[in-house]
Structures are given as structure tokens and as C-alpha cells.
């Protein structure tokens, strides 16, 4: 068994393991009896509870399960154990949760929540919960009516509905505990992100960066659903919860009311900066980290200035919401480079000493390593073909945009790489402490953009750009790669014809899982990238695979299959592929998807055959 050796290595000043352990322990403690069942499992490590209670697996967002039954040697015999149909036909981006012996699956609109009983053969339905969001909310969801998952907290499953509500459901009974309305669809607000619970506060942010909404993040009392604090990502300092504690690393982020003064007129009121992606939490520094979405509208001429605090990352105090630092990945974003991607919290040796960092594969094409205490950018390296910018000036922290690729009003600017969905969109990467590699799903696409005057009409899109995307150099639209953030280089990559729109999962057995949009669920050797196993599911995969230890002690891998999302909306919403500008230009790149897959919604759970 190799894991003994490998497992010890990260403990040397890495810091990841202790934190994971803390998290796991707290959850285990709360679960009481259930935890005992898990602990009794023969194969489990003491600090791997075998559950999956939040989409990112842990606060550090590593999406790493230490379970190691499945190895490169035996993964080829992986086979489906059971499946479950969600009855939906929209894109499924969520990760299933496994808490104790129950699996929770949240679907895209109409946001059903299913609980499956893992103790019984075939995992029968325990209960279901239907929040009944307003159907009209489908009309203001920019890129399919997805949901990125639920979170488990003290006997409740908490998730968001498309029409802007946060709902807590009793995990045992499926009864609603509380629900809080946070967004207004008449302003174009929806919520698609997976909430995160930190210190009893449910952190939720809004979506709608293409509708002229004003982005915010809010904290709800996890027991009652009452709003504890709310921080906007644009506007004057008091709205953004910027106070004396706010100490950004770079000078350009310091100043009074930059969230309003870096916008013309009142543009900040409809300036985007939404929070529809991932939040991480560092218990030691007691800071949450989240990224802010693109400024609106896409047409940059209508919002000269840096457009703070969009397309950047905030560190905030989870109790008060007060901002600590901010860094803007893409000041005055011109290409819809939202900065909502996952923040993987690691301790990495940099310049000879261990540093607490955030590893952030960013949509603008650079993989950033940022000091998570100060907000200083330690490195930023392109991980795909990038021509929209010339690099990142590490002195000022600023991205250097390419003049020739700046949108011009009324003109088609061609061959901007990466395209609007970025080098890597929301689909989260995974970090293995064993290989010390980040496994990241990515896209290789470029785009033509024509900007036009955008009209703000509340509840309608506020974009001001036409986009047409297509495959980047090489002709493959997707990539799956392993990146070494310490040595700042790519270790291996797999080229995929279609964009890779699923999250990554890595395990203690040194296997990496991801899915493709035409429905293949794949297992690769974490060290070499060699394809070891694949399985064709019913629809395309754009969700986040998870791994858990079943009540029978075996390691399972679960993934939801259901094509959609921005990349797959051509299938899930039956768009017309003759219009390459459809779905904000993504149809230009994935017009052939209709020939390759159909809509659907099925849960697949795989395991190795039972030992004889």
C-alpha cells in the first residue's frame, strides 16, 4: 500500500491536512452516531470521514478524497452500482452530497432536492423536496438554469433556488426549516451558486452579471435564515463593508469609495460583480475568500475606469463581512472574465519558505498564486493560449491588456483568446496532496466580439456585445491538465474535443476523475494523465464528481450526468446551432453538440466489484 508513505509527506509544514482534519472532525462530531459507523469502516483513515458534505469537499476547496480503494491498478474494473434519474433535462452542475448513509442531490430548475438511502440496495428515494421557484426566473438566468449544489450543516441541507431564495431543509425528513428571499428576478437577479456555511453563517451570493444586477454576498444565520450581513461588490465603501481593516496589497485598490469612483455616473448601480462561484474559508486566518463576477455591461466603453470591485477576489471576515483585502484579476474587464473561480487554499513552499497561498486558475488564462494573508500575487502564469493580455505586472499586480484585442464599438474584434467563458470557467479543479498537483479542467477557445450600446432595461439582459466562439489553436475545445503550482508549470495535459465543463475529483488512490460533454466519465492516472477507464453516461457531464465511502465500507464515485450550462445550453434549451452568436456566442463553438448528446439528468454511482 503506497498511501502510508505518501500520506505523511504533506504533513511536513503543509498545513492542509490539519485544517481538513479540523473540518472533518467538527462535522464528525456533529453527526454523532453516523460518524461512528464511518469510523468503524476498515479502510478509512482516521482523518478521512468518507463523506462529502460540501461541493468543494472541504473549506480549502481541494476536492480531494483520501479514500484509496480505487487505484490506477484496479480502476479499469470500476462499474456502475446504481443510477437515479432526476427527471430534469437542464444542465446539472451540482455535486451530490453524501452525509452518513444518505446522498443528497439537488437539480437545476425547478431545484428539486432528493435524498437517497445508501444503506439499501439501489439507494431508494428517501424523500424529495420541491421548493417551487417562480417559473419566470428561467427567463433571467443567463446561461442555463443550473444549480451548483447544496451544503450540509447541522442536520440541514441548505441550497439556493433559481428565483433567488435560500432554503434550509431538514436532512432527515425533507421538511423545509426556513427560506429567505434574497434576490429579485424583476431586476434580473437569480442564484445559482452553492452556499457555504462558515461558523454558523450561510454565505450566499447572487447571479445575473449579464442582467445589470449589482453583485453582493450575504451571510444568513444558518439556524433561522435571518440576514447577518450583506456586502455589495460595487458602490461606496459602506455598502461594500470596507472599513479601517481593509488593507489591500496594491496601491490601486486603496482609496475612498473606489467602488463608485471607478465608474462613470451611477453605472456601479448596475455594474455586476456578482458572486456566483466558489467561496473558501481559512479557519486559521478566519477569512473567507470569494471572487466577484464580471462588470456589466460587457461593452467596456460604457464603464470606463477600473470598475472596482468586479473581477477580483475579496477576503472578508466571516462574522462581520468586513473586507480585509482585495485583488483585481482583471481591472476594467473587457472580455467577461468573471473572477468567480475556486480558491484552493494551500501551503506551498515558495522562494524557499512555506507560504499560505490561494491557488487560483483564473478565467483570464493565468494561474495565480496569491498570499492569502496579504493579497500579494506571488506568481501568475498562463496555463492556456492567451492573447487578450500580455501578462501580469507583478509589481503593480495589474493585468496588461493587449491593445489590439480591446473591443471597439461596432467592430468585430477577432481571435480573442481565451473566449468569454475564460480559460477555465466555474468548473472547479482538484488538488491532490499526494501528487502535489492541481488537476484542472479547462477550455481552449477563442472568440470574435462586437460591442454595441447596451440598454439597461430592468429584468432584461444588459450585455452590449455579440460574441462568436470557436476552438482555439489546435482545434480541440477542451483540456484537462495537471499543474504544479510550486514549480509553476504544466505536468501533463489531455486534449478533449469538446470543452471540459465538469469539475475534477482526485483521490487518495492517485486517480483523477472528470466528465466530458458528450457523456464520457473518465478516470486518469493522477501522475501521468494516462486514461485508465471511461464510461459513457446517458447525457453530457458538466457536474462535479465526488467520492465517498458507502455504508458497506467500499469507495464509491458518484457523478451526475445532464448536459447544459453555458457550454451545453444549445442542447438543454434546444437552441438553433445555425446562429453562432446564440447563448452569448457559445453556440458558435458547440453547435455540433446536438449531434453528440441529448438532454437528461441521471445520477451514476460507480464502485469496484465486491471483493470475493
Amino acid at each position: 500500500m503506497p498511501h502510508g508513505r505518501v500520506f505523511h509527506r504533506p504533513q511536513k509544514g503543509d498545513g492542509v491536512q490539519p485544517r481538513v482534519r479540523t473540518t472533518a472532525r467538527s462535522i464528525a462530531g456533529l453527526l454523532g452516531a453516523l460518524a461512528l459507523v464511518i469510523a468503524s469502516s476498515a479502510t478509512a483513515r482516521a482523518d478521512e470521514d468518507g463523506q462529502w458534505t460540501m461541493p468543494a469537499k472541504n473549506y480549502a476547496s481541494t476536492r480531494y478524497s483520501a479514500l484509496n480503494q480505487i487505484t490506477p491498478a484496479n480502476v479499469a474494473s470500476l462499474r456502475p452500482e446504481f443510477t437515479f434519474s432526476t427527471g430534469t433535462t437542464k444542465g446539472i452542475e451540482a455535486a451530490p452530497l453524501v452525509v452518513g448513509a444518505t446522498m443528497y442531490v439537488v437539480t437545476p430548475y425547478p431545484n428539486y432536492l432528493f435524498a437517497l438511502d445508501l444503506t439499501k440496495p439501489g439507494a431508494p428515494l428517501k424523500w424529495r423536496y420541491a421548493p417551487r421557484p417562480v417559473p419566470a426566473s428561467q427567463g433571467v438566468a443567463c446561461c442555463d438554469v443550473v444549480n451548483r449544489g447544496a451544503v450540509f450543516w447541522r442536520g440541514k441541507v441548505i441550497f439556493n433556488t433559481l428565483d433567488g431564495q435560500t432554503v434550509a431543509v431538514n436532512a432527515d425528513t425533507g421538511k423545509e426549516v426556513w427560506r429567505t428571499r434574497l434576490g429579485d428576478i424583476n431586476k434580473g437577479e437569480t442564484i445559482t451558486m452553492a452556499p457555504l456555511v462558515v461558523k454558523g453563517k450561510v454565505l450566499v451570493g447572487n447571479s445575473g452579471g449579464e442582467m445589470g444586477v449589482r453583485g453582493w454576498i450575504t451571510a444568513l444565520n444558518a439556524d433561522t435564515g435571518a440576514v447577518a450581513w450583506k456586502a455589495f461588490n460595487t458602490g461606496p465603501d459602506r455598502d461594500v463593508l470596507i472599513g479601517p481593516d481593509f488593507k489591500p496589497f496594491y496601491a490601486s485598490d486603496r482609496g475612498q469609495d473606489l467602488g463608485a469612483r471607478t465608474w462613470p455616473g451611477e453605472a456601479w448601480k448596475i455594474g455586476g460583480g456578482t458572486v456566483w462561484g466558489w467561496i473558501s474559508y481559512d479557519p486559521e486566518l478566519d477569512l473567507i475568500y470569494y471572487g466577484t463576477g464580471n462588470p456589466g455591461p460587457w461593452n467596456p466603453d460604457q464603464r470606463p475606469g477600473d470598475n472596482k470591485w468586479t473581477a477580483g477576489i475579496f477576503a472578508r471576515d466571516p462574522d462581520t463581512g468586513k473586507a480585509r483585502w482585495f485583488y483585481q484579476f482583471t481591472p476594467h474587464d473587457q472580455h467577461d472574465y468573471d473572477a468567480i473561480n475556486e480558491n484552493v487554499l494551500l501551503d506551498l513552499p515558495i522562494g524557499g519558505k512555506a507560504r499560505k497561498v490561494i491557488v487560483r486558475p483564473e478565467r483570464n488564462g493565468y494561474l495565480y498564486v496569491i498570499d492569502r494573508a496579504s493579497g500579494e500575487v506571488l506568481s501568475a502564469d498562463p496555463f492556456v493560449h492567451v492573447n487578450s493580455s500580455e501578462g501580469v505586472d507583478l509589481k503593480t499586480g495589474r493585468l496588461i491588456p493587449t491593445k489590439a484585442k480591446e473591443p471597439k464599438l461596432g467592430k468585430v474584434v477577432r481571435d480573442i483568446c481565451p473566449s468569454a467563458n475564460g480559460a477555465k470557467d466555474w468548473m472547479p479543479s482538484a488538488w491532490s496532496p499526494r501528487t502535489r498537483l492541481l488537476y484542472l479542467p479547462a477550455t481552449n477557445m477563442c472568440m470574435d466580439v462586437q460591442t454595441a450600446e447596451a440598454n439597461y432595461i430592468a429584468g432584461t439582459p444588459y450585455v452590449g456585445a455579440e460574441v462568436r466562439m470557436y476552438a482555439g489553436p489546435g482545434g480541440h475545445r477542451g483540456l484537462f491538465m495537471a499543474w504544479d503550482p510550486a514549480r509553476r508549470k504544466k505536468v501533463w495535459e489531455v486534449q478533449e474535443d469538446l470543452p471540459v465543463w465538469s469539475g475534477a475529483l482526485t483521490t487518495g488512490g492517485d486517480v483523477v476523475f472528470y466528465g466530458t460533454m458528450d457523456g464520457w466519465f473518465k478516470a486518469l492516472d493522477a501522475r501521468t494523465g494516462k486514461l485508465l477507464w471511461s464510461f459513457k453516461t446517458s447525457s453530457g457531464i458538466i457536474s462535479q464528481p465526488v467520492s465517498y465511502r458507502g455504508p458497506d465500507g467500499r469507495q464509491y464515485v458518484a457523478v451526475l450526468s445532464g448536459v447544459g450550462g453555458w457550454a451545453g445550453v444549445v442542447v438543454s434549451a434546444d437552441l438553433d446551432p445555425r446562429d453562432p452568436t446564440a447563448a452569448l456566442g457559445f453556440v458558435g463553438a458547440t453547435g455540433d453538440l446536438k449531434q453528440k448528446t441529448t438532454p437528461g439528468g441521471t445520477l451514476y454511482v460507480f464502485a469496484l466489484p465486491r471483493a470475493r
Partner: protein
Amino acid sequence: MSQSALHPAADQATRLLGLWDLMLWVCAGMYVLVIAFLAWAIWRRRRAAYLIEPEVMVSDPGLERALGGWAVLIVVGLIVLTTASFLTDRALATPGERPLKIKVTGQQWWWRVEYQDGPVERWVETANEIRLPLGRPAEIELASDDVIHSFWIPNLAGKTDLIPGRTNRMAITPRRAGRFRGQCAEFCGFQHAHMALDVTVEPEAAFEAWRARQLAPAAAPADPQRAYGQQVFQAKACAMCHAIAGTQAGSRNGPDLTHVASRRTLAAGALPYSKGALAGWIANPQALKPGTNMPAVRLSADEQAALVAYLDGLK
């Protein structure tokens, strides 16, 4: 109000008028020479008749020498005019110091005017009116998003086209305060005739005061009727095309109305501003400006009165 190239109020128009004067005198001189020669020619043999046989063998060395002289005179005149023209052109291209940056966008059939001067928070948008500080050069960026228009304030400078897909620039250095009229000078469709600009040149202090007023969002409605008018604006088609800063209305299809009541004209100079004109314009834009993109929105009398009261309060 004046719209004439003959009464310049800015450096550029003054230079052009100087060039015009030079051209006029040189050309008038040439014309007098031609007409005098013609008159002489007619007078000289005015009694001729068919009785005389036509001349066949002719040789005109004298006339051909005169022709040479005439040609030399023309060439000299042309050199003078070309040089003057070149020098004027060069002077027009010289940018001034500390220019006020203004972006003007031509639309069918009105002008979007954006003061893009100083930090972005100080940028101001208005429509169909331009105010210029006396003596300070303005650098005007010209663009169009539909068809070709041409920006022309004859008292201040020559015209420059607004061409979709291109950006043009021109400079104006106003030297005389006053109110001038500008007008689109490139045929642009139905209402090319009613696409005017209200231009005011005023002392810098007055200009800054105006800018400060424009910078403020629209005043909140002061009385119930106006409050109702604001609701009407938001609830009806108005908000689909117009923006009023400080409210939810943020569409850019039509002119920004944040301070519409502070303007002196309506509908791109088609009407002088007054509350009554505003009411008439809203009630039946197609009668006043046939073909305009502003529709006649059906409103009840109460709604109409409230809307007009609200807009009239946007000083």
C-alpha cells in the same frame, strides 16, 4: 441664435473665414478680368453679320502670348490659394492645451453628448446640447453607431463626419460667448432636417456650474403628481428608451433625460423647450417630426399631465 460661417466665434471658424475672404477676393478679381475681356470682345465687333466670308487661315501669335500670360496668372493664383489652404489646414490640426474632451455620437436623429473629461466619476452625459467654456480648447471625438452623420457648428468650425466604424476628432477653441446652432450636415434619413444642436459658449465658471448641475442625479419628485409621473415614466414605454440618472431608467436608445428641463430645445432642436411643447411632443411626436423613432405612447390625461410635470421638474 446664429448658424453662420460668416460670424465666427472660435479660432477655427475665424481662420476659415480668413481663407474664405482671401478666396473670395482672388476669385472675384479673376472673374472681373474674364467678364471684362468678354465684354470687350462682344463690344469690339458687335456689328458683324453674315455678309462677311469666314476667316479660314488664321494665326494668332499675339493672342497665344496673351494666353500664356493668362495661364501664368492662373498658376500664380492657384499657388497662392493652395498655400493658404495648406497653412489653414495645418493650423486647424494643431491641438490646444488642456483640451476639454467631449464625445459626440450621432444617432438617427439626435446627438448624444458625453463630457469625458477628468476622472470618470466626473463624466457627464447630455443630449442635443453642447456647452463650451470660453477660451478653452475642446477636443471632440465623433462617432456614430447607425449611419453617417456630420457634426457642424458653422460659427465655431468646419464639419467633420461621424462615420460608423471609425472615430474622428476635431478641435474647437471658442473665443466669443453666445448661443449657436449646429446641425447634421450629412444626409441621414427621414429627419436629417431636424437634427440640430444647441451650442452655448460661456465663461468657464458658468460652464463648471452647469457641469456640476448636470453631474447630479435627477431630483426626486417633490409632489405627488410628479411622483406619479415618475411611476408613469418607469411603467410605460418611456423607460424602454430613455435614461434618468437616479432612477431605474437606464436605456440608451434615446436621449438621456436626467436634466431635460434644463435644455432649451426638444427633439434635437425641432422645438424650443417649454412645458407645453414637451406635452405636445409626448402626445404626438410623429406629427412634429414624422419618422422619428419616438412612438406616440398612449396615456390617459392624468398620466400625461403627471409625466409632463415630472419631466418638467428635471432641471
